[in-house]
């Protein structure tokens, strides 16, 4: 299914980069992942490819750059249509985009509020995080995936963020499994997929990374 050269400017712990790689894996597209040293210095290629944000992920398709993970995943879905990530009907697509946007705006920030807490994690931060997960449980309903019977766009957007949950569970002293069992079940189902299991890093390593970030930001 070669449609040219695909490169991903990457950072192993970024859930936004994971989205792009999972989408490519789902489509069976061969790509080269280039790890950026975000602390040592961003590459010339990154700065040139994404001048407005200077962030990862960047997808380079035949040398042409694209940024913003959700836009990149939509692009991947359009260029390599099989298997489809977005539903075929316009309303279904609108709903998928709505939940992707909701996840984008809410989840990572709520995760950040917990791991960035100095001292004891505020109850309000934990509550906010769990409230968001409960809303997502509502959107999931009785379906296997947000995409329905098959793994789809919203699942790709959401699952990488869960790689940071182990870290916030440790800081916050709670377990997602206890508070949001349905969401937890969805996470487990996604992790059984080859594309997801291959890309999502070991949660313990993410936890160690977060500890390092806290030290760097003077939170410890």
């Amino acid at each position: 299914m070669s449609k040219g050269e695909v490169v991903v400017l990457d950072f192993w712990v970024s859930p936004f980069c994971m989205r792009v790689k999972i989408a490519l894996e789902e489509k069976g597209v061969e790509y080269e992942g280039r790890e950026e040293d975000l602390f040592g210095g961003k590459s010339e290629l990154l700065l040139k490819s994404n001048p407005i944000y200077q962030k990862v992920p960047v997808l380079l398709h035949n040398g042409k750059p694209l940024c913003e993970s959700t836009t990149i995943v939509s692009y991947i879905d359009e260029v390599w249509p099989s298997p489809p990530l977005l539903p075929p009907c316009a309303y279904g697509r609108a709903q998928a985009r709505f939940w992707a946007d909701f996840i984008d705006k809410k989840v990572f920030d709520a995760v950040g509020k917990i791991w960035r807490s100095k001292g004891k994690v505020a109850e309000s931060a934990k509550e906010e995080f769990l409230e968001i997960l409960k809303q997502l449980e509502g959107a999931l309903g009785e379906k296997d995936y947000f995409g329905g019977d098959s793994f789809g766009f919203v699942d790709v957007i959401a699952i990488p963020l869960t790689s940071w949950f182990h870290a916030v569970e440790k800081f916050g002293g709670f377990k997602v499994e206890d508070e949001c069992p349905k969401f937890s079940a969805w996470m487990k189902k996604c992790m059984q997929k080859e594309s997801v299991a291959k890309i999502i890093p070991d949660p313990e390593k993410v936890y160690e990374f977060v500890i390092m970030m806290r030290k760097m930001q003077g939170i410890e």
Partner: protein
Amino acid sequence: MGEEVILLDFWPSMFRMRVRIALAEKGVKYEYRDEDLLKGGKSRYLLQVNPAHKKIPVLIHNGKPISKSSIIVQYINEVWNDKAPLLPSNPYERAQARVWTDYIDKKVYDAGRKLWTTTGEEQEAAKKDFFEIFKTLEGQLGGEPYFGEENLGYVDVYLIPYYCWFHAYETMANISMEGECPKLVAWAKRCAQKKSVSESLVDEKKISGFVLK
């Protein structure tokens, strides 16, 4: 197409102006219901149809609600695909259009707001930031008449509602849009000549009045 299209609306909202322009471009007949957010309290209808965000605009198509202006405009473009395509047919160009509307979302509203919520040194910094953003957008326009190149496209529809806020920005922060971004102002005037735009934009003096309150 016998269908029912309702737009829940609040008159100064630039987000819903986008939806109105898109519907007008496509020649779609719709009913709009005003949601007066200042009178306090959103209608029960709004809360019922848009529980997750509780925000307007909300488009209701044959009873099914869609919210968030970027999602609504893309939906309108896909459903009424017989005329006035708003997004390019090439996937890479389509992705680029989405990157720019996302940029507008992330940057313009907050930068504009800072112009009238700050003073002194903070306001000077806000002005610098504001013009940097608009100059970046000017750069993206290049030499084309529209962001959509020959015709009004997704990015044009997305950005043009800010035109009716220019007067407010200029008054609040003592700046000149035409002075700093002449190309962009020329673009805005060009868009405003289109019926779909001129009929959807709110009068700029009304916006200034609203901001001053």
